[in-house]
């Protein structure tokens, strides 16, 4: 049902865009001669991650706050750098290779994120443009410590997460509705990483690193750019990532939402 809904929405959006673009008679004024842009981004996404040879899944929820700086090196080709802070909340990760097995029930871990992006608009008409984009984000969480309850002695567990996310895809943007430009994107977007859990109980010291990866890799993005002025714009995007079920779990759709405020100069 979720997948059907996604397809329905995508088709509806395409229909809406094309129907509007077909009737468009005026030339859009969407153009920007400014080379630099900078801004702040906020993003939330929930990913269903699989681990232990795909036999188990658990949710990963992340909040990202990022600073962006972009530069248009040639017409249509933008390069950008991303730095920021992210909080990732892993749930229900079981570390069964440690001497005393541990289950991370819940726990958001803050950390830094770095990344870059490139956008190349290779086709443009008065009504729409089509671009390809790539983005890479690397999140490195800080250390988080827990006391291990129920032991005869003191014990601590230290968790260190990290993940990477890539988005590679294309965007179809409608330009005829100035100052609002809706777009639809379709991308290949894997997310993978590790969660390292170090256990320290007196003489017992071991570390288990668990590899995680997002179940779904296909990202469907729906968004819009609103230009407040020649310099300020607001970008809103909602993402859907469908994934298939496995032996022990059902399929579903993950989602995310992003907001970015940009200033061009």
């Amino acid at each position, binding site marked *: 049902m979720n997948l059907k809904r996604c397809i329905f929405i995508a088709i509806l959006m395409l229909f809406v865009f094309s129907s509007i673009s077909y009737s468009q*008679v005026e030339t859009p004024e969407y153009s920007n001669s400014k080379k630099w842009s900078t801004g702040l981004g906020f993003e939330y996404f929930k990913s269903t991650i699989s681990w232990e040879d795909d036999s188990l899944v658990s949710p990963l929820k992340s909040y990202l706050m990022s600073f962006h700086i972009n530069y248009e090196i040639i017409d249509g080709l933008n390069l950008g750098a991303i730095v920021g802070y992210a909080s990732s909340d892993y749930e*229900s990760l079981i570390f069964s290779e440690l001497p005393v097995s541990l289950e991370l029930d819940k726990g958001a871990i803050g950390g830094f994120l770095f990344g870059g992006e490139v956008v190349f608009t290779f086709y443009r008409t008065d009504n729409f443009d089509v671009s390809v984009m790539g983005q890479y984000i690397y999140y490195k969480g800080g250390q*988080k410590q827990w006391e291990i309850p129920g032991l*005869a002695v003191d014990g601590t567990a230290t968790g260190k997460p990290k993940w990477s996310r890539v988005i590679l895809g294309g965007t179809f943007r409608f330009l005829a*509705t100035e100052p609002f430009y*809706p777009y639809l994107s379709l991308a290949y977007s894997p997310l993978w990483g590790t969660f390292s859990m170090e256990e320290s109980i007196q003489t017992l010291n071991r570390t288990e690193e668990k590899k995680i990866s997002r179940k779904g890799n296909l990202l469907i993005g*729906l968004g819009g750019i609103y230009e407040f002025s020649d310099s300020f714009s607001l970008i809103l995007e909602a993402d859907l990532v469908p994934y298939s079920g496995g*032996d022990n779990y059902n399929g579903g759709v993950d989602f995310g939402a992003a907001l970015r405020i940009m200033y061009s100069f």
Partner: protein
Amino acid sequence: MRKKKLIFVGTILFILSMSMSFTDVTKDKRIRRIINPSRQDISSSKHSYHHRSNRHLYASGEVLVKFRPTLSDNEAEALIGVYQSRKIKKILGLNVYQIQIPENITVAEMVETLHRNPDVEFVEPNYIARITATPNDSLFQYQYALHNTGQSIGVPGSPSGTERADIKAPEGWEGTKGTGDTVIAILDTGVDLLHPDLQSKVVSGGRDFVNDDFDATDDHWHGTHVAGIAAAETNNTEGIAGVAWNCKILPVKVLDEDGQGYYSWIAEGIRWATDEGADVINMSFGGSSEASILAQALSYAKSAGVVCVASAGNDDDFVYYPAAYDEYCLAVAATDYDDLRPDWSNPGPEVDVAAPGTRIISCVPTWYWGPGSLPYGYAGGTSQAAPHVAGLAALIKDLKPWLRVDEIMDVIRYTAEDINSGSAPGFDNYIGYGRINMDTALVPIKLTASTRK
């Protein structure tokens, strides 16, 4: 013209974003809530319900909901219809509706959605309860050491135990019951190879160092009793349950019919069991003298990856050998059905942990009571405590074969329950780190927000 289009596109986007339900902004529109549940919370609930095993934790396709008393029956049923659901029945007396939910929504989603409705007092999945891994052995009810419900300890008139003064075996078996690949060598008076609760668990006729042959048949009763505690056949509808549910027994006779044995027999037995592939060696005996031959045999076993467990002794004296070889052996003291240390259990700094050792029911040789009697009996002592620990060591080794001997010994020590923390907090000479706890040792410990440092 452009403005109209902008309004149109904006409207479409608004509708779409609502249908994708990032948030439920309208508190009083119940239909919207049911159609557009918030996925971000729902999915996490779903996974946390399901991820730990393949077994279903609740009934699929239905939930239990109780509406606030302000709602009449008609209104409640109308509301159920609003959620595209159907009443299965109303549980009388509790005013709880069992409702069938639409196929296109998960139980977790429905719970999450209904939970936001102010007319709902509570809503939850129709959870499935199961007995824990409780074996069906007929005498399991008398095994307070494994699962203490506060039952009477033995025949009518016997004292009752304290609830949960046990090693938490059923909980631990949820983590693992072991496999037939892990072998516990019972160095003792031998094992009754034909005992109905041991026959299938014994890997071979063993080795008899007393009579120097390969028939480790028990001519006492002690070894059979110890073997039963460690690994009697479990869930076979008769007799007792062994701690190491599925693990095997290697009988090694190093004590004679009077329960005595030379250190040379014991050392040979340790070495033979090690070479035969034993994973754990249980030694429910002790001598007061230190001896190099014993230490070297134990060292050989440890270097080969064998976990050695021995009883501390029953004289309220110092810890006997081999248990006193701290580096190579887990020394086991005794506790009773109230989680108290009996005063005969030997204390000393070498004591690592304790386990129940008072009035322990287990196997005795089939000839022991004579015809017509069940081959089971009660016995007490650190001899009975040690095989509980040996059974746990076997389960840990089976579950985590990559752990070193030292690590397995430490897991058993550190996951123990400090049952005398009121009078002697932390490690002490009486029960060491505490009474062993199979739940903590075998089942993942939850790290929650409250345990965050």
